[in-house]
């Protein structure tokens, strides 16, 4: 399982609403009299307003990679813009390291963005009139850092994203993948604690996308940022996430680890997403393990807690009797019937 830190959450989002339309704030206040969130949203829609984010509630733990997943129009881009306050949420609160940033004034917000927050954009958002190094050094320039220092730091982060030697080219001379590396480098220039990524790899070719995903995981392994990552690609979400929030029509429908999403979808909408996902790779032995241990288990293929179903099945291909499962310390914690493993894999094909 993922490591759970005990420190305070990096981001807490509480009852966040984003409604588009005229007099959204009053309309929302009135509509909330309607009771449930669903009826509030319906009341707003009836008035011709658009509830793009509805009562979002979640936490991102420090050092956690939190993925928000949804189809286009589901409100995920709006949500991340609310959290980074690129747009003003209609109601609710967003706390970053305990500080309610919706209350922060313009000055404080600029302060936060200059030191604590970094963001990567889907279409890169690079400045065409600046060189790669100037683009990366831009947030530092905003802080008032000197030219030489900026360049030194820019080269440092460019090295991190494997773009050494391209610092004096212009964005137009780079490929899409290279451009997004620049975007990533720029967002890391100020060494932020919180890292927002808005569909960073969606505009890239599949091959380049996978390569950047791997590099991104490498970078995260060393930097340990608290991340909000937006994507519409379930494979990407499952590959990267510590936890995933699934959004539909502005509503967060399920939050959970990749396994939970794949193996225990809360409704058909979520299940539909994971339909094509090879569950064997995301489900673990304990998902099909029973506590009720048979007295006699002749074979022990060496199944352990945390092993994926796929691996486990490979180990007991020829067995028919239940087999024991041990935890990391070697203690017996349960048993698995090989046929259940196979059944778990079968499920995906229906």
């Amino acid at each position, binding site marked *: 399982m993922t490591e759970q830190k005990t420190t305070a959450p990096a981001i807490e989002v509480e009852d966040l609403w984003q409604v588009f339309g005229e007099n959204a704030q009053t309309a929302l206040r009135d509509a909330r009299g309607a009771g449930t969130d669903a009826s509030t949203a319906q009341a707003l829609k009836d008035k011709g307003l658009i509830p793009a984010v509805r009562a979002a509630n979640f936490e991102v733990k420090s050092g956690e990679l939190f993925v928000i997943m949804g189809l286009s129009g589901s409100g995920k881009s709006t949500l991340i*813009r609310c959290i*980074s306050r*690129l747009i003003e949420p209609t109601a609710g609160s967003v706390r970053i390291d305990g500080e309610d940033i919706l209350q922060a004034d*313009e000055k404080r917000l*600029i*302060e*936060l*963005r*200059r*030191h604590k*927050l*970094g*963001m990567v*954009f*889907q*279409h*890169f*958002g*690079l*400045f*065409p*009139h600046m*060189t790669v190094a100037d683009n990366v050094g*831009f*947030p530092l*320039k*905003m*802080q008032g850092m000197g*030219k*030489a220092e900026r*360049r030194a730091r820019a080269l440092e982060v460019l090295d991190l994203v494997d773009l050494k030697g391209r610092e*004096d*080219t*212009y*964005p*137009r*001379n780079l490929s899409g993948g290279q451009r997004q590396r620049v*975007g990533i480098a*720029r*967002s890391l220039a*100020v060494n932020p604690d919180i890292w*927002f990524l808005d569909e960073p790899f969606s505009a890239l070719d599949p091959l380049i996308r996978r390569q950047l995903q791997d590099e991104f995981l490498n970078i995260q392994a060393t930097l340990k940022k608290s991340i909000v990552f937006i994507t519409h690609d379930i494979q990407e979400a499952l590959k990267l996430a510590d936890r995933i929030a699934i959004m539909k029509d502005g509503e967060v429908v399920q939050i959970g680890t990749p396994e939970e999403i794949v193996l225990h979808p809360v409704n058909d909408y979520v299940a539909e997403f994971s339909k094509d996902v090879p569950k064997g790779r995301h489900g673990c032995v304990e998902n099909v393990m029973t506590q009720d241990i048979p007295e006699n288990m002749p074979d022990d293929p060496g199944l352990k807690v945390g092993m994926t179903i796929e691996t486990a099945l490979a180990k007991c291909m020829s067995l028919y009797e239940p087999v024991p499962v041990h935890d990391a310390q070697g203690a017996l914690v349960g048993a698995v019937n090989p046929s259940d493993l196979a059944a778990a894999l079968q499920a995906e094909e229906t």
Partner: protein
Amino acid sequence: MSIAEEGPVSGQRGLQLSKGGIAAIVVLAVAVICRSFGAQFEWLVAWPAALTVPMTDWVGTVVGGFLDVFKPIARLFSYLLAFPMTWVGGLLGGAPWPLVLGTVTALGWLIGGARMAALAFFGFGFVVISGYWLEGMNTLALVAVSVPLAALLGAGIGILAFEYPKLKGSVNVVLDVMQTMPTFAYLTPLLVLFGFGPVVGLIASAIFAAPPMARNVLLGLERVEPEIREAAVMAGGTRRQQLFLVELPAASQQIMIGFNQCLMAALSMVIIAAVIGGFEDIGWEVLLTMRKALFGPAFLAGSVIVVFAVVIDRMSAALAEPRPAQDKRVAATIFAIGAAVAVWAAVAEWNPAGFAAMDGVAEAVDQGVGQFTASYGTNLDALKNSAMFYGLLPLRIGLSDAVLPFTWGFAWTATHTFVFYAVFAAISGLMVLRGHVAGAGFVMIAAMVLEIGVAQLPWPILIGGVAALGWVASGRKLALQVTLLLGLILISGLWERALLSLYLSGAAVAACALVGGFLGFWSAMSPRAWLVIRPICDTLQTIPLFVFLIPVLMFFQIGEFSAFLAICMYAVVPMVRYTRHGLITTPDEMIEAATASGAGRWQTMLEVRAPYAAPTILLGLNQTILYAFAMLVIAALIGTTGLGQSIYLALGQADVGLGVTAGAAMAILALVADRLVQGFAEERRQALGL
């Protein structure tokens, strides 16, 4: 990668010269030589008279001979054209005003519902009570005949250029010349060709109004989606069917935009054409009252022109937009009411030519202006004089000549010159140390121009400077082109007058760039400011050129300063619009990236929006320059020297040679400025990867 190598050389040791740096140094060297040895070698300053070609005479002979050949045909054409003119004139002038008012209001209803109907009713209602009904209708009759001519001509040119892509290049050049050639300039040959009479104004306005139509037809046709085109081909249409049944209708919106511009240009020109002698039209009325310094009537007649312009513009612009169909019965009712009143008026013999109900207003305006100038005359004069003595005059003849004891309080001596150059040399020296070689050279050259004066600038500096700009903006080809074009003016003997024109339009453009740039910037920062500035821009852009002369004359009399103000008022609009547009159309993602990087409002504006807007702002500057040149010639009516004056004089004397040559020189100046700025805009666009 080559572009990247040309980029800024920040962070590198040693001085690596950019293209701009080399150009600046070369021009500076030329300037220093001219300044130092100008006294000994006069040919360094003024082009020797011995090498001047009698261009005006040659052009006069050639064009004159050419005109003589075509005169009979032209006269026949003129004779034929007089028929529709008399008919339409008789129709509009003879029709009782209630009928015309009813018709126009009904038309307004059909085009844009109650709002347009109200605009038409009140607009034309104002003309009825202004006392200029007959003059107004005469002007409208001219527009009504010239616009179909211009629209057909323009559409024909546009379709031709589209059907035969090989022609496109040359058609564009012809359109450029038609538009940059000052309006007064082709009045002279037309006068010779068609003889005195309203037909000249008609033809001039058709020539002037055709290019926008042609350009928009071409643009519209080019923008028709390929799939629509292909669908027409696959449906088995002949080329003619494809064009007339599919492509032209598909391009109709763009074509209507062209029609709107065509209408406005025709109106503007019809009014200007009054300078060749009027026949009871509204332009003549303005000119006449202005010459007599009757500001009240001039103001009133000018207002009639503005009202016509606004009504025609808004109604034809509405045609270009998708709009809901209006109830035809309402239109019919309005028309019927108009007709009924007209019949009743005819029976009762009730004032068919409108009322002169506004004479009181005219008088009040006259008195008001009189009182205002009487009580604030000293202030106005002070304003005018300080602008002249401390701004325009030094620019024209240089600080060394303009600084005189009785204006500045001291005389300019050699010591002043020395200190002046020492200060600027120090500034540019500092800039060189910080790596801005091109900027330093530019500052130094600007200082020299200021000391010498634009009108006295030695020709090698100007031609060398312009060629260098061309080289930096685009390359060797442009540099060669502008050198040749300016060389033509140089050897034609019109050089000094060209310098005078250059100085005044240059001063106006500089003022427009500053004021317009600021207003555009302000409008971009504050939507509320735009709410105020926008309608002013709209109005200024609708008003025909001619009308700008009235207010400046009222307050500042005849003179260079009045001309300067009129030019500024007309030419500032594109600068405001393009600056604002450029600044607010930065892609959202770039703004978000800047915000997420912790950029404040001002930082975003300066670091991201402004550089991104640079090409758009340059296009605005380009428009401003062209507008300034167009107005410069009109401003000759109220006292400018230079080419504009020559063109105007030529018109009075029917001197074809002078008129055409001076007009061509003016067009060359405009064309050179246009190419240079376009070159820089293109260079910026490429640098931004757009």
